[in-house]
């Protein structure tokens, strides 16, 4: 059971948290919304909840709530640039269907 970050993604996350001035890590999760059922949640984490699952990847603490874990287990986060846009990209082995833009998915 794990969630991992590419080195590039980890460098960006560390940089963002440092500039933000606070935060204990990155929270990854899913919620039921969006056009294909599930949507990703990607937030700064200011505190660790008691039932959070904690992963370390390239020096970044990743927090996942237990309900979300089955949907994102084994996922890898990357940070990429596409034209002028840039941001995080999820490589999720659990995904079976995806909406056109990939922002929501089904398992």
């Amino acid at each position, binding site marked *: 059971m794990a969630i991992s970050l590419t080195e590039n993604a980890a460098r960006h996350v560390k940089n963002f948290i440092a500039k933000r001035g606070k935060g204990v890590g*990155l929270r990854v999760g899913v919620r039921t919304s969006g056009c294909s059922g599930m*949507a990703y949640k990607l*937030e700064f984490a200011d505190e660790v909840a008691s039932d959070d699952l904690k992963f370390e990847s390239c020096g970044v603490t990743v927090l996942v709530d237990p309900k979300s874990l089955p949907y994102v287990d084994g996922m890898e986060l990357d940070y*990429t640039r*596409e*034209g002028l846009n840039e941001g995080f990209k999820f490589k999720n082995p659990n995904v079976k269907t995806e909406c056109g833009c990939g922002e929501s998915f089904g398992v």
Partner: protein
Amino acid sequence: MALLQISEPGLSTAPHEHRLAVGIDLGTTNSLVATVRNGIGVVLNDSNGRALLPSVVRYFADGGVQVGETAQAMQSEDPSNTIVSVKRFMGRGLNDVGDISGTPYRFVDAPSPIATSRGSGQAPGMVQLRTAAGVKSPVEVSSEILKVLRARAGEALGGELVGAVITVPAYFDDAQRQATKDAARLAGINVLRLLNEPTAAAIAYGLDNAVEGVYAVYDLGGGTFDISILKLSKGVFEVLATNGNSALGGDDFDHRIYCWLLEKNGLSALGASDTRRLLTRARAAKEELTEHDETRVTAILQSGEAIESVLSQQDFHAMSQNLVERTLQPVRRALRDAGLSVADIKGVVMVGGATRMPQVQRAVAEFFHQTPLTNLDPDKVVALGAAIQANVLAGNRSSDDWLLLDVIPLSLGIETMGGLAEKIIPRNSTIPTARAQDFTTFKDGQTAMSVHVVQGEREMVSDCRSLARFELRGIPPMVAGAARIRITFQVDADGLLNVSAREQGSGTEAHITVKPSYGLSDDEIARMLQESSRHAQGDMQARALREQQVEANQLLDAVQNALDLDGAALLDEAGQARIRAGMDGLRAVLQTGDIHAVKRAITQLNDATVAFAQARMDKSVSRALGGRKLTDLEV
């Protein structure tokens, strides 16, 4: 798949509903767009990695438009169709623009009706520019710049914008703010709010450094200078005072070098393209001298003549010293307005590319006895602050929201009898704000009232700026002074003014949204402020005289009415003649401007009518009581 950004805790957005918001610094020389990504303010670059978009728009005969670098490159070749520094013309009439002989543009002064909700009014329109693609207003030209920034933002953020915060100089009046909003709308941008540039800079610094205290924001841009005194405390930004000079900026430093080049090379009366070319060279030389002790300026004129001159940093500093000095006068005024001294200023924020010049930094450091803050890029700090504000307004931050306070640069008021200005909202009031004041009718049976909205510090309306006029009609006929008309001034968070007039008895109401087609220039504001203190004594006397004149007219009206009604019945020929003589005496001195003579004549006329007034009183009493028993009267 889509690229995701990290949100604040609990503020993840639903798919396809990202609240993408940007801050736009619509500058005189350069414009920028910035956003908050992964919690950090970043300026969005174009595909070539450039952040600054030169605020230059070139029009072609086929209707095509070029914006930015490509347009800037052609400004020497096609000066009259290549619009630079259009911000100077935003919301201005031809008269406001001032000396246009130095610009290569073909101006058209177009009158246009002002928009009012109820009520009516006319004001001269905004200046327009004749280009190869037709007549363009500054609003249209600005919207071309905004369109490019909007497209850049859409591409960089991967979606449609929710809205933008656009910055304007603190001194922009209602007309200029409205013109900016119109330009944004024309570019398809939803304006979340207009934000004063110094306030935006303070936000950028305030959040990054989180230090409380009073700060001065020294903003020397391409064409404008603004000084703002801001108080940062408990996350609240309050603008204590603003001042500035709209005709002073980096361009003037370029112009000094340009004049020096002309003199040095014995040149005179250059064509538009040569002028542009030399100004471009002058700007490059100025930038070079920030880092180097001397620079070589070379150019080849259209005539084929080659120019080559060497300019040292020392000479440049000497020739531009009085420009630097001129920025310090508004600084002193702003400090005085805020009731503060140099010692109260905790930090000085430098904004605008021109503050990179070492002589400017040195002068500011000397004036404030401290090293100014320059750790953020002075070209980007305003856009970054606007982006942070936009991010809050779009709903991407929750708990630690802060409130933003701005001020009104000049008092707002209305004209009262005798051409006097009655201030309703004093200058430096924080906005949004609303104030109301009651007024009354001047004549018996008056059924309409003209409301003339003015802006300025002087006592006489003729010395203030007229913003709008409207009429309140349908006041029930009453004796003079009986009607109660409440005038309400409301200024919203964008600094736009709403004025309403309501007759309290009948509920009759009229209002106007002040959207003047053009308004005050920063220079005018500065000049008006200076004059108001210089003329304080004279203004007071003028006001006293006007008040006496108004009183005299009222008295003359009243006596004339009484004479017409009862003169023949109650007075003999001599008595009537005596009163007429008193009236003639008063009329004779009324326009002389001698306040003591007017006062004396009023007293004389009053004295001359005492017996007459007594007789009238007796007559009306006896008419009221005549033929009635004492017991019938309710006492």
